[in-house]
């Protein structure tokens, strides 16, 4: 079988597995977030928090809880790294410097998992397992909570109440993320991922002498790293490291975990707004972009244009033998179209166009299918914009899911889509205008520019992958990317929750013959077009200087 055919079969198997999980998981999540029942351990957790899970919050209160919880999380994770040197179970690693500790804390709380540190050489068991992996769960649960709050905004009328943040946070964690992660982690261990708490130890080698390993709770962190679309690797090589991603089965399984919740949330959305077809339209738009990008990526990587790849006879630099071109391409697209940023191959060594596809995937706003929660709310914002554009074309007041999309709603949606491009392009421009940041580049010319553009694209969109030739452990990059990650995560959430509140207050508009049918393929097509045009217009000039220039030159 040719590698191309094997790649298509892997993609097909992946689609089949996602399709099988779609209904049960989507329905289950809708039940979790609509449930009024609290299990005994949850009741105990609410008691510790001091929260009443049945108390409804309006959007300002919901937002305050999100921000307070996240602020405390950043501070806690920062301090944990700063005192690592004096903590037991740290493998003797020293405390992390302030700028890097800030960057890492912001990164993991913002669901980005950008890493300017070398996992295996910097972070001990306590910080990895008790700090970083915890935020893998909680940042994901926060994203889902905000998405569910927006869905409630569409589903509810004449209220303004969006649910209880603490209940959404706890349920998302203990009823969705933890159980799937347990199963996922065991599957990964069975494939060969390590899971132990041994210290640094010596292992014999073939040619004599020994090599030095550190152990760790790798599989348990790997499972939630993919499932929560986080992406922060235990090891520097992330999912390219054989202890994180040992074989082709674990590779497909990890891609499955990345895409599982973001796709299934469209079913949850359909359920909660009372029309599964609305969810399918969103799913359709996501799937078209995802499959299209994957096909393009496989094409450009198999074609291996670029001087070094043409001499080598294939674009295998930075890719593992066991995954090959296809398994690497599918992973690269899944990780950049979601907010994951885990990598099983190094994007900096992709072809010029391949690197461009990973960047464009993030620049779309990570909505196809996007991060857990953030993908759904990002896509719903675009759905609102698409409805507005359609309304302009026919001269009617736009409506979506029985809610009027008026001035306030459009303003909030427009603010949402302006935040990340402003951060990405602004910081990239400043970094290039200043004399020193460019010293961090490994490659020169168009690719060097791409390294910096990629860094801010990845940070502001909360992805976390990198054109890792860039030495990002400098005060400038640690600080500015840290700020970009926090603003790129939490400012959009403000607009999402404000929008949710304004929608939940409205009374529903009855559907008429003139209402745009948003549950039809035509609308899904309009949505895809809107996404591509808005992103294209925003980022095309920057992409032309980087990956397009590199791709066209080869």
């Amino acid at each position, binding site marked *: 079988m040719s590698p191309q055919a094997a790649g298509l079969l892997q993609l097909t198997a992946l689609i089949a597995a996602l399709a099988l999980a779609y209904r049960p998981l989507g329905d289950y999540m809708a039940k979790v977030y609509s449930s009024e029942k609290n299990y005994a351990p949850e009741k105990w957790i609410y008691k510790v928090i001091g929260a009443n899970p049945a108390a409804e919050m309006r959007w300002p209160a919901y937002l305050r809880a999100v921000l307070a919880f996240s602020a405390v999380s950043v501070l806690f994770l920062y301090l944990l790294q700063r005192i690592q040197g004096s903590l037991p179970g740290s493998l003797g690693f020293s405390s992390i410097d302030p700028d890097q500790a800030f960057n890492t804390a912001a990164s993991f709380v913002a669901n980005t998992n950008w890493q300017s540190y070398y996992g295996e050489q910097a972070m001990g068991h306590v910080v990895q397992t*008790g700090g970083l992996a915890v935020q893998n769960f*909680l940042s994901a649960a926060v994203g889902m909570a905000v998405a569910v709050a927006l869905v409630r905004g569409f589903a509810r009328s004449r209220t303004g109440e969006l649910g209880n943040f603490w209940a959404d946070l706890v349920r998302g964690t203990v009823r969705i993320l933890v159980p799937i992660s347990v199963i996922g982690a065991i599957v990964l261990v069975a494939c060969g991922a390590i899971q132990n708490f041994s210290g640094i130890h010596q292992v014999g080698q073939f040619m004599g002498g020994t090599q030095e390993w550190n152990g760790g709770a790798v599989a348990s962190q790997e499972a939630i790293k993919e499932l929560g679309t986080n992406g922060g690797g235990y090891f520097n090589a992330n999912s390219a490291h054989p202890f994180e991603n040992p074989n082709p089965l674990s590779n497909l399984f990890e891609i499955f975990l990345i895409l599982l919740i973001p796709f299934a949330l469209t079913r949850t959305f359909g359920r909660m707004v009372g029309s599964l077809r609305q969810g399918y339209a969103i799913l359709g738009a996501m799937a078209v972009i995802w499959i299209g990008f994957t096909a393009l990526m496989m094409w450009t990587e198999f074609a291996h244009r670029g001087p070094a790849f043409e001499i080598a006879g294939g674009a295998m*630099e930075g890719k593992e033998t066991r995954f090959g071109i296809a398994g690497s391409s599918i992973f690269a697209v899944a990780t950049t179209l979601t907010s994951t940023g885990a990598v099983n191959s190094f994007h900096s060594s992709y072809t010029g166009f391949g690197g461009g596809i990973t960047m464009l995937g993030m620049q779309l706003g990570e909505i196809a299918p996007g991060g857990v929660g953030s993908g759904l709310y990002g896509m719903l914002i675009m759905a609102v914009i698409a409805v507005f554009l359609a309304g302009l074309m026919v001269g009617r007041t736009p409506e979506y899911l029985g809610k009027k999309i008026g001035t306030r709603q459009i303003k909030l949606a427009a603010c949402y889509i302006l935040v990340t491009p402003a951060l990405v392009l602004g910081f990239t421009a400043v970094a290039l205008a200043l004399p020193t940041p460019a010293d961090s580049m490994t490659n020169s010319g168009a690719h060097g520019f791409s390294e910096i553009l990629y860094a801010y694209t990845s940070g502001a969109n909360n992805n976390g992958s990198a054109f890792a030739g860039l030495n990002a452990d400098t005060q400038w990059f640690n600080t500015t990317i840290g700020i970009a990650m926090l603003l790129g995560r939490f400012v959009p959430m403000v607009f999402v929750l404000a929008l949710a509140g304004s929608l939940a207050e409205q009374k529903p508009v009855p559907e008429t013959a003139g209402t745009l049918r948003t549950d039809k393929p035509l609308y899904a097509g309009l949505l895809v077009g809107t996404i591509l045009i808005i992103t294209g217009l925003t980022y095309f000039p920057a992409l032309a200087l980087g990956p397009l220039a590199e791709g066209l030159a080869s």
Partner: protein
Amino acid sequence: MTNNTVSSTARVLGAGLRALLVLTLVCGVIYPLAVTGAAQALFSDQANGSETKDVNGQVVGSSLIGQRYDLPPKKGETSPTPDLRWFQPRPSNGLGTNSVNTQYSLLLSGATNRSGDNEELVQWVKDAKAAVVKDNSTATHKVNPADVPPDAVTSSGSGLDPHISPAYAELQAHRVAEKNGLDVKKVESLVADHTTDRLLGFMGEPRVNVLELNTALRDLTR
């Protein structure tokens, strides 16, 4: 009014802190310990790094972690010379060496991150190709540069790739047979025995585990 805002902010921050601590207990203590317990009970070999042994029971490494098969460095040598008795892995281009935390000599994973138009990478690939052709050409068997597969001249994503393509293993068989005084057919069948096909015929790529192959080769020669 201001007092109210301050105290309500303090209240919600307090709730946030308590939520963080209790969920840290769930996700950062109970979850990893439970998974570790289950992993150690069910799959202790894998959970501890898939160590592999030779016939004498000596641990020779992990079947998942690639190694170098180089001659002991001579005085004044800047780059190591491959020991041509053994099958060679993919190039490492300086990867895998400890650079950051010098307290230990831990295995460090990572990639070169060079782009396709990077001049250094172009040179590395050219040099690697020339070396593969030279090292593997024997008196009776000349290697054609067009037959050198891409994995033989590029470094991997982790720098610890345990595998090479079957094509690269077969290309090395003549040389390995000559250096070890073995029959080429015998070495080729050893390669075939250690070739893993795609899982279920379509997952991943066909590959050869270099450590396992070399271990079997050494067991054969001593």
